[in-house]
């Protein structure tokens, strides 16, 4: 009996990470203009054509904003996010590796994640400056650092608190929240942009 108590006291306190897995449909937020607009350092800069029209990839957090669904698959060392848009994916490494110090600019950036209680905190850097932050054309530079806090409020609801930190584009960081709803009856369908370009 005493041995059992001692054993329990000494056993490592293991808390399982919450499971964010599932197909999620973003709802609501498509534009960050309300929060971002007043903070633009260069509001007069021309918007240009939507870079998505070339069938290059949307960036982050635009892919999270939808409207197309995404699917989260979770393993101990990595969370993978599959996006129906472009049939593309993002790897969020949760094995403790640091963000790269001098990354080659890319469309989706380089993401690492760690658990803060029930919330997965994802940091992403290493973006090129070609994409829009949202469907409304909010710009950004290569200095962009996005923090997404994924919190599964209950079985059917995921909140993503998105903080945009880009000192070359905005006066100071700002935060918006996207919500997503579990879509258990669907799978992602293939979406090849070049075939769907109108």
């Amino acid at each position, binding site marked *: 009996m005493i041995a059992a108590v001692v054993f329990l006291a000494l056993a490592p306190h293991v808390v399982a990470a919450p499971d964010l897995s599932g197909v999620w449909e973003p709802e609501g937020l498509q534009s960050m203009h309300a929060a971002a607009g007043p903070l633009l350092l260069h509001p007069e800069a021309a918007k240009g054509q939507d870079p998505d029209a070339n069938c290059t*990839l949307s960036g982050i957090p635009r892919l999270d904003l939808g409207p197309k669904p995404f699917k989260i698959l979770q*393993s101990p060392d990595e969370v993978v996010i*599959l996006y129906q848009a*472009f*049939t593309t994916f993002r*790897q969020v490494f949760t*094995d403790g590796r640091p963000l790269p110090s001098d990354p080659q600019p890319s469309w989706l950036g380089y993401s690492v994640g760690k658990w803060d209680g029930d919330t997965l905190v994802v940091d992403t850097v290493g973006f090129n400056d070609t994409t829009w932050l949202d469907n409304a054309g909010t710009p950004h530079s290569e200095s962009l650092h996005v923090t997404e806090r994924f919190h599964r409020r209950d079985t059917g609801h995921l909140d993503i608190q998105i903080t945009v930190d880009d000192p070359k584009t905005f006066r100071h960081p700002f935060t918006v929240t996207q919500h997503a709803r579990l879509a258990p009856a669907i*799978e992602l369908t*293939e979406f090849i942009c070049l075939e769907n370009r109108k």
Partner: protein
Amino acid sequence: MKSFFVACAFLFFVTIAHGQWLNYPTKNAPRTKDGKPDMSAPTPRTKDGEPDITGIWLANGLKYLISIAADLKPDEVPFQPWAAVLYKERRENLGRDDPNNLCLPSGTPEKEAVTSPFKIMQFPDEMLILYESRTIYRQIFTDGRPLPKDPTPTWQGYSIGRWEGDDFVVETIGITSKVWMDTNGHPITEAAHVTERFRRHDYGHMDIQITIDDPKAYTKPWTIVENPHLLADTELLESVCEENNKDARHIVGK
């Protein structure tokens, strides 16, 4: 000849790209005394006792990307007559209409022969393949669901998978006939039922036995074997074809 240059372009990109990526040691890799991954170590196994086929893999050179039938004699490919004519036209046109020229994706089963790494990951209900080329993914559902009855044709098709002994067996239907199975242009149609058997021989080597059962294009099923090798201590790069597709207007061919 054109096919060779197209395929070379893939290989060139892979060579350059690996020099730029942040290397990160592969967890749990068996290592030799000098710290390098031991590619001859035995096949790792999962908790369920099956072979662990996860990891980053790469085709051994251009061979199967140029021709999926590279190991067969020409008369061993059982073309239907119209398919033989189409294949001949594609070769004479120097692969002018290869969808890859316009940044359309490789489909099943060409995708694993593309000379860019792909990452196999295992989850409870699916095996997932992440492809560096086009930064695109393929889901292989392992939750026991049947193949769909009348799927909308797609480049990847619809795949389900299960274990048979030490083979991970993937069945795919619903592949669009726009897919070329290689840069030579072996055709495939929406009638195809492709079976891929993944068998990992040891830590660094795997066979993928591919059976193409497409009665519209071929008179009987035919089988080839590809042999990717493992890449350890690295990660996938992002690769966006449309970013750099400046030469579409220079495509030659009749």
